[in-house]
């Protein structure tokens, strides 16, 4: 069962989070404030999803490379705040894993698995360095990561709607965790 609108809503939400991050004041959000790549990535996600809904084309490849860009931004953010090295090794591993899945299933839509893997790693990286956003974000980031992993399982077993629901859960928890920090705390 495929419901395009439901499947694309989480991507639109993710794009919205990034675009809002671009416009939020620098004091609360030094990471994305007025950075051109943030605006472009946000537009990429939301725009690609809207194009997918209207024209029924598959743009999961573009979204996958987009979220790799976001992972790089977050890794850089963590590196600046903790002094730890950026985990560059994640990128070739994720790309290799995703390509393996795509070639196994012979379907470009499985680039979405890569997007979900990145989302899970993103949430776990932020959780590992929870002191940056606040220790109370640990559990909500864990929920986000678990939802993303379950979504992968659902997608690989052919349950597209279930995968979309769980993906939405992962994005919403991440959106609310980061959003609460950016918009309400400082």
């Amino acid at each position, binding site marked *: 069962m495929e419901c395009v609108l*439901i499947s694309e809503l989480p991507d639109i939400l993710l794009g919205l989070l990034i675009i809002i991050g671009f416009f939020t004041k620098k004091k609360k959000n030094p990471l994305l404030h007025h950075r051109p790549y943030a605006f472009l990535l946000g537009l990429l996600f939301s725009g690609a999803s809207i194009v997918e809904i209207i024209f029924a084309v598959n743009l999961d490849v573009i979204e996958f490379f987009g979220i790799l860009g976001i992972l790089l931004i977050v890794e850089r953010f963590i590196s600046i705040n903790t002094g730890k090295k950026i985990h560059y090794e994640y990128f070739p591993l994720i790309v290799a894993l995703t390509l393996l899945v795509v070639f196994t299933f012979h379907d470009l839509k499985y680039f979405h698995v890569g997007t979900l893997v990145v989302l899970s790693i993103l949430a776990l990286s932020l959780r590992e360095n929870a002191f940056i956003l606040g220790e109370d974000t640990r559990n909500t980031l864990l929920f986000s990561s678990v939802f993303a992993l379950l979504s992968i399982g659902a997608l690989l077993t052919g349950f597209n*709607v279930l995968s979309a629901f769980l993906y939405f859960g992962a994005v*919403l928890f991440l959106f609310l965790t980061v959003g609460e920090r950016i918009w*309400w705390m400082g």
Partner: protein
Amino acid sequence: MDEHTLLSLAIAVMVLSGFSLAISVFRAFNLYIKNRTLEALQVIGGLIMLLVIGGLLDIRATKGALSSSIITLSSLFALIGGLLVVLPFFVGIKQTKIDRELKVQVFVILASSVIYSFLPLPTLRKIGVILLLFGITLPIFILMKSVSSLAVCSRFNKNLLKIASWLLVLHAWLRYYSFKNPQTCIHYGVLLIYFISLLIWVYSTLKTYETLREWL
């Protein structure tokens, strides 16, 4: 297991997560209130909800259809379980405000039962379905209000719970259309509204519980 059953399982897990977090919030308060009776009643209520939701899922997965007697019995147990979980927030903590917004929302949710009378089902089954929906929806709704009434709940989470409660009201009215169009995109769209409401409820209750643990 088909996709619809797995989706129902995901939703059931969210509902039960929400209930366990609400129980955890009360248990944190109970370190000071020290009312073991209310705590025990709440845990019993939570277990009843677990049995009802788990039982319904199991029967639907194995037998496919639910009989009228099972629906009616489940709805009664859900109402009792829900009442036991909600009661300590009113009797123990006493911070839940029954304001105009809550009264309007409860009235609108109850009014949605009118739409279900158009379902092509026998009367007893219709009553059972309506009671079951309310048995699960109303406790969730009142728990949202109870948690948002707490002083430890931040303004961000209070606003989120307000949004979640109105999404639940919207779902109560749209649920009829998911009965009429089973396992179509409309059906899943209506379920998504419910799922979003539950996600927001679980998020806000979790953050409130984390804040409470830091304070206490």
